[in-house]
């Protein structure tokens, strides 16, 4: 059993991980966060908290798995009513590229369809597209005001699969290889580096062929990485990587409901201050691992948890998966009144061979966090007994979190796990990670992903009519 376990764990990478040069063609449904930012940008409103969210599954530790993000009945319904509510908040007049009173209602509506349509659907509209959306305007206008009729065009576009999914289908270039179009490239750059829908400037670049050549793409990436939104993507990533959104759902003794948003906000502020730096700087001083949100999420209701914290390091930071507890093992803890410290409470994990098999992979790391309780408050004693935070990371003794953070940054598994996880987050698919030095900028893997060799290539089976016909209407 131990041998099997070690084989499972020794791999350090998901066995079926996908390199950035071998990504499959995909349609990726927008995450709630991407939806929220996209509609905010498109409609010039603040849509914070308004995105439909039916609780997408966590796969591989992240909540944006391309293969499992579907639009079921509940979500389809919410997309509809949400779009109606969003349009009520928007000023239609502000979104119009023309004045219906001067050029006439229908010509202006047509201009709007082409202009807003390109922004919302992220590609130029074809003649049939124009016809379909203009028809929505016309039939609505029979019984409603001009603004309402335009509003229903917007609502309709927000139901479109071209809005709801990021297309990475590409065009067939032979041999089962597909290449992203410039429009898809603009979309990939924008969502990956800025977390939102492409700007007009980026869409213009796509329209003018300024995203066709690799050097143009590389230059665009450089420019986009200078924008604060790129750091925001790193903040979002680390928040997901360490499972910090869980703060909204956990029950912890002493944690009040209203404290949670503030706690996460403080953590994200801290992450933001380090997001422009290197991997080594992110881990410096153990500050990330002693962050109150990190420690509160990874704890038990009534106390610290060497198991959960060890698991955080093992699975999230080293990308080594541990199996679920096997069936028919009694998982209940000893009566807390019978034990002195948390460390002592979990001691049986080391002495009982059935537990030790797996817990040897977690608890010795997790005890290094023992100076911090379930809310991340520092303590030197627990129940009147001195805290012992001496732990071990696979043979390397660590006397507390600062040493643990230092050991991690020295560990090539951690440095490749960071890359693997960031790619997983950016692509929504199982990804490989190459080891990088601690001096690597946190944003560097994204540059490599989008601008490296074969960055446009997608693999997949060929189907009839797989080329997106761009019979665009001139605006």
């Amino acid at each position, binding site marked *: 059993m131990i041998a099997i376990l070690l084989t499972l764990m020794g791999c350090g990478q998901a066995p079926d991980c996908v390199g950035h040069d071998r990504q499959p063609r995909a349609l990726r449904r927008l995450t709630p966060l991407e939806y929220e930012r996209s509609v905010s940008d498109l409609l010039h409103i603040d849509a914070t908290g308004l995105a439909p969210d039916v609780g997408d599954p*966590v796969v591989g530790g992240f909540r944006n798995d391309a293969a499992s993000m579907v*639009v079921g009945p509940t979500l389809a319904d919410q997309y509809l009513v949400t779009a109606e509510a969003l349009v009520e908040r928007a000023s239609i007049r502000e979104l119009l590229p023309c004045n219906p009173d001067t050029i006439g209602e229908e010509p202006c509506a047509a201009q709007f369809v082409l202009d807003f349509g390109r922004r919302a659907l992220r590609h130029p509209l074809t003649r049939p597209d124009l016809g379909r959306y203009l028809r929505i305007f016309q039939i609505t206008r029979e*019984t409603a005001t001009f603004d309402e009729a335009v509003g229903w065009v917007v609502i309709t576009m927000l139901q479109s*699969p071209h809005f709801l999914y990021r297309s990475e289908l590409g065009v067939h270039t032979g041999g089962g290889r597909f290449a992203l179009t410039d429009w898809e490239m603009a979309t990939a750059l924008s969502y990956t580096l800025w977390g939102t829908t492409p700007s007009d400037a980026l869409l213009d670049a796509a329209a003018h062929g300024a995203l066709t050549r690799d050097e143009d793409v590389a230059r665009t990436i450089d420019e986009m990485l200078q924008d604060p939104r790129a750091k925001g993507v790193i903040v979002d990533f680390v928040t997901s990587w360490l499972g910090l959104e869980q703060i909204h759902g956990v029950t912890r003794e002493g944690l009040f409901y209203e404290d949670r948003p503030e706690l996460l906000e403080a953590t994200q502020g801290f992450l933001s201050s380090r997001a422009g730096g290197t991997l080594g700087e992110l881990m410096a001083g153990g500050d990330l691992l002693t962050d109150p949100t990190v420690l509160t999420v990874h704890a038990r209701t009534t106390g610290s948890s060497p198991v959960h914290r060890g698991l955080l390091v093992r699975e999230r930071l080293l990308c080594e998966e541990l199996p679920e507890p096997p069936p028919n093992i009694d998982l209940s803890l000893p009566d807390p009144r019978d034990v002195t410290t948390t460390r002592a409470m979990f001691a049986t994990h080391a002495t009982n061979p059935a537990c030790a098999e797996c817990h040897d992979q977690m608890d010795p790391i997790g005890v290094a966090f023992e100076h911090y309780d379930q809310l991340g408050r520092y303590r030197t004693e627990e129940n009147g007994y001195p805290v012992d935070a001496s732990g071990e990371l696979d043979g390397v003794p660590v006397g507390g979190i600062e040493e643990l953070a230092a050991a991690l940054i020295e560990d090539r598994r951690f440095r490749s796990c960071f890359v693997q996880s960031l790619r997983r987050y950016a692509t929504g698919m199982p990804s490989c990670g190459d080891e990088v030095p601690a001096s690597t900028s946190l944003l560097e893997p994204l540059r490599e992903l989008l601008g490296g060799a074969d960055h446009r290539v997608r693999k997949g089976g060929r189907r009839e009519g797989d080329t997106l016909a761009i019979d665009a209407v001139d605006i």
Partner: protein
Amino acid sequence: MAGALAAPFFHLLSGRAVGAGEGPRRLVIFGTGNGCAPSGWRFERNDPLEISPGSVLEPLRGLESHLLPITNLTIIGNQGHDSMATMLCGQSLQSVDQWVGNAIGEDTQFRTVELGVDTAWPTSEATRTRMVRRGNVLVAPNDIPKRAAERVFGHPGDLYLRSRRSSALDVAHSELEDLRSRLGAEEQARLDVHLDSVRDIERGLFGEVCEAPPLSFGGEFPDELATQLDIAAHALACESTRVVTVQASVSASSVRMGWLGHTENHHALSHQYDTTTFEECQQWYALQFRGLLDRLLALPDATTGRPLLDDTIVMWVSEMGDGRLHSATDGCWLLAGAGLRTGRRIDARSSGQNADVLYQVAQLLGAHDVPFGGAGQLEALS
């Protein structure tokens, strides 16, 4: 509009429809997670059934003649909490409600209705938060009672809004079909779920509108669950659907039943050595199941005038037996209603699997020969 309603992607999976008067013709599944507290399922007598006072099923005492508890049930493919996503599928690609909905729901507004309370846990794996699987894709239930009610009971009178929505969905529909033709099989399956969902809403917009019962919205977990159960019962009463699932929270659920005076959450309690408090949780769920049966006894079938329960199979399911052990050979499911030989307990020890229950239930409801993958050793439910 009519054309948009046609395209039947999932009809390939359909079985034969069952008409009125030929046995059970409705299915309701109530799902909860973290196991079923098997030690709390205690009975004075197995046949005729008598539930022990103080046991998990105590709230159902007096209704024994309608009940068929199955204990020591093996949940095949045990994966602990992740069995949530397979317990209703067995080895088939869909959950039993979907198979049955395809078989008997074609002429209703909604082939199936998925309701839930507190199932959108952002931190859980999908296999712990979803029990319904359609065309091999896990489907999220509708967690917002107000929205669920609007979908199921419609917006009577608001023809303008319904027409606008219908036009918007029409466009989405044709774009989805265009896009679908450019995809590989796996991606197609996902777009099919989307298409199917759009079609569901379209059907809801122009089907016969049921009269909405008086419903209260908002409140805490118990209030929302009560409202969802009201919606479920009334949707069945007005025949807008024949198949409803109601999922109360998720597997590894962190729902804390403060109204019972509990300070620890459902999952934490499921792992305590002393099962008393966890049994209280399960007893509370049994009370909700009782409430569901009471609703189905009180509401008449539109055609026959008899209580809905007379033609309905009702199930309470969970993904494991003893939550402390994540065990899979001591599952306990509760069946109730029509077409079953009720008023007794089946001890399925060493012979019965959840897949057999699914198979027999589907069979009774007209979804024939579904490959749930059971060993077929469970005694007859009917």
